[in-house]
């Protein structure tokens, strides 16, 4: 051990002296010392920082590339669609295309070198390749050992493969379902916990897919880019990858650890930014028949945004960095951020509470939109539940031969069947009829609002009707109309209020048909982040506050409505569960 240590110190000292002399990075007699330094620096992150400081003084890797006239890029040779060898022996795929564009930008020729997950770091560090574009997931650990270029150029995620006959379109439909999986992936346990899947683990992809073919499970859970590769195969014609990929791991272009802060890093970063802005990546994805994921679309939208002055929102700042909203938010630290973002990150670092709805722009937008969606649903159900209750009561009271009987039957059916099933019947049953005959798609939020309103309305109609029966027994010739309605409402307000509060509590049912309200948003965020306990508590608190606000509002309305001279007697109607 002492030898290694003295060697380390000597190498460090030598390295520094050569830095100031401006030696070449990989070529020449000083190359070996620098390689040694680089390797040692990998082991000791503290040394890495010291080693990176003089980078500005040394020859930029870009100069070497230009002198050589060739850019050497490492791409995968075993990853169909992204980087693999064609029958002619050439490396082809999305990543070779990206490499070609980099060479074009540098105005040099391109040499592709096939790498695998096992040797890609080695090839970068020993100088065999200048740039690595090889399905490399961007993680904190890897940021310490190589230079990760921002922004990320792609993201892989977890998805499922389903047979042609499958109707599964949402992750929520897989809850409690038997899903086949391949043993040994990092995401199996996470997915089982976050999506409540009943996983059946098989030893290989082959076994898992055979089990799926035999109908022993409803889907096969695996990496989306790998499934996309399989689906190209004629064996799986008609099979699908129907869901939106989750647990996205962004991929990054990587450079030699010494290239941090170099002109090459800047040039590659600008190129990736350009690929997003111009749609080059989306075109390449389409060219290689890779099913479009949300990552490229979302990143393209973000990088195409402009600020107030018409400049791109994501542009390099004075320190050469991209603005925080444009960076990989999962790897940001609180001192990189400001505002709400900073509060969220500080809470995460100090307490471990992962409030991604505060620090992550995307999660925050999803959640805020969900709050608005839930508020809209609540407002619609309150108004609809009350209005349909009044209309129903008047129909019951009028004793019009057929109409009243129909209304009475409809009210009984609505009250005596579960609202969730009513939503399914209208959304899927009536909805598919509407699509088939008129080509219109039915909005889930509207369906949920209508069904829940009618459910509450049926309860309210019965309560108001009981009140008017009570009045009829005391006031001769009493008939329910808009003029006499206030009298009946005074008697039935207690049960109307409790019905309306219950329907507000039940608005979450809209999540069953994928309406992006609070429950959908919360299960989505926690599945991505793994912060189930935080998100579930946030959801519960927000919902309780909403319910409380509605109770207050109805209380106010009742006080405003109540006249002082009339005694209010609440009618005994059982409270409904939601």
């Amino acid at each position, binding site marked *: 051990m002492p030898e290694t240590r003295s060697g380390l110190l000597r190498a460090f000292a030598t390295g520094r002296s050569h830095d100031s002399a401006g030696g070449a990075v990989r070529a020449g007699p000083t190359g070996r010392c620098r390689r040694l330094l680089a390797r040692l620096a990998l082991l000791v992150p503290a040394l890495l920082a010291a080693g990176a400081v003089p980078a500005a003084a040394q020859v930029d890797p870009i100069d070497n590339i230009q002198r050589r006239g060739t850019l050497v890029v490492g791409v995968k040779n075993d990853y169909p669609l992204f980087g693999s060898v064609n029958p002619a022996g050439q490396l082809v795929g999305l990543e070779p295309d990206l490499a070609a564009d980099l060479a074009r930008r540098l105005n040099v020729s391109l040499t592709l070198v096939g790498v695998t997950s096992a040797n890609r770091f080695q090839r970068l560090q020993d100088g065999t390749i200048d740039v690595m574009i090889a399905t490399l997931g961007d993680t904190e650990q890897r940021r310490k050992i190589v230079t990760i270029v921002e922004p990320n150029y792609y993201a892989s995620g977890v998805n499922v493969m389903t047979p042609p*006959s*499958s*109707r*599964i379109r949402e992750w*929520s*439909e897989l*809850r*409690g*379902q038997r899903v086949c999986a391949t043993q040994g992936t990092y995401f199996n346990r996470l997915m089982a916990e976050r999506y*409540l899947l*009943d996983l059946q683990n098989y030893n290989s992809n082959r076994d898992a897919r055979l089990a799926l073919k035999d109908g022993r499970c*409803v889907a096969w859970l695996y990496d989306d880019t790998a499934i996309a590769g399989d689906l190209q195969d004629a064996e799986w014609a008609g099979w699908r990858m129907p869901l939106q990929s989750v647990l996205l791991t962004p991929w990054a272009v990587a450079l030699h650890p010494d290239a941090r802060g170099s002109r090459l890093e800047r040039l590659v970063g600008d190129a990736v930014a350009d690929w997003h802005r111009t749609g080059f990546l989306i075109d390449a994805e389409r060219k290689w028949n890779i099913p479009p994921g949300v990552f490229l679309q979302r990143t393209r939208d973000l990088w195409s945004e402009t600020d107030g002055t018409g400049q791109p929102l994501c542009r390099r700042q004075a320190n050469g960095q991209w603005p925080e909203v444009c960076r990989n938010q999962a790897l940001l630290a609180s001192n990189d951020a400001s505002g709400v973002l900073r509060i969220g990150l500080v809470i995460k670092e100090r307490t471990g509470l992962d409030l991604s709805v505060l620090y992550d722009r995307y999660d925050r937008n999803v959640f805020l939109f969900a709050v608005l969606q839930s508020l809209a649903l609540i407002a619609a159900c309150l108004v609809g539940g009350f209005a349909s209750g009044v209309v129903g009561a008047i129909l019951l009271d009028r004793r019009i031969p057929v109409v009243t009987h129909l209304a009475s039957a409809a009210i*009984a*059916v609505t009250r*005596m*069947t*579960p*609202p*969730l*099933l*009513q939503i*399914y*019947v209208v959304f*899927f*049953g*009536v909805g*598919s*009829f509407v699509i*088939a005959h008129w080509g219109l798609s039915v909005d889930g939020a509207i369906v949920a609002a209508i069904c829940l309103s009618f459910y509450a309305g049926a309860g309210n109609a019965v309560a108001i009707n009981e009140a008017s029966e009570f009045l009829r027994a005391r006031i001769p010739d009493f008939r329910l109309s808009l003029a006499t309605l206030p009298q009946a409402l005074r008697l039935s307000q207690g049960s109307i209020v409790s019905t309306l509060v219950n329907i*507000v*509590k*039940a608005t*979450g*049912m809209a*999540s*069953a048909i994928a309406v992006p309200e*609070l*429950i959908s948003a*919360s*299960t989505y965020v*926690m599945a991505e982040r793994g912060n*189930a*306990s935080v998100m*579930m508590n946030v*959801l*519960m608190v927000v*919902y*309780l506050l909403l*319910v*409380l606000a509605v*109770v207050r509002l109805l209380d106010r309305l009742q006080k405003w409505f109540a006249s002082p001279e009339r005694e209010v007697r609440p009618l005994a109607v*059982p*409270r*409904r*569960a*939601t």
Partner: protein
Amino acid sequence: MDIREIFVELRTWTPYLAGGFLWNIIISFVSMTIGTLIGAVIAFMRASDEWIVRRPGNVLTEFSRGVPTFVFLFYLAYLLPSEVAVFGTVLPVPSWVKASLALSIAVVGFVSDNLSIVIRDWRAGRRESAVLFLPSWTTYFLIIVMSSSTASVIGVSEIVSRANTVIGAINKDHMMIWIYLYAMTWFFCFCYPLTLAMNYLKEQMKRRLWVAQTS
């Protein structure tokens, strides 16, 4: 579409769906039992002369009224462990138990409110509300049976969730609505006659009590 075909499909799947409905009844019964026990304790707390006992009883009742059951269902599904160690043995916590616990919170509020009235009346020498408690409880049980359909969203294999499975297995677009309507029929046929019977029973009891009081 052919009525006969629909009828044959529904008949084929009836035993499977009926097994699902049995789960709805089991879940509802378990949640009524848990909710009634806890609700009864809270009701006695609320009837206490000591404010230090009465006050928590009121707060707990308020809380159980405010909690949205549907949200609570997700809360328990994700936050309760799927197995617990009790005295060294590992017991599984299946999702139907989580669903029963979630639904029982609504029962707590109902039983607490209704039983409080019974206790107050009983102490004042009036027995009527005690007699009326049983039909009210049964009516509430039916409401919980309908609510138990929400357990399908966390993957409990009850009738709604089985209806979805059947739809996937048959894989014919026009069958979807019939299967959902058929599942609805199960709820309606179970809940409607019983609700009517309970309302009738309640009216009879009220009349008899009223007659007994006046004579």
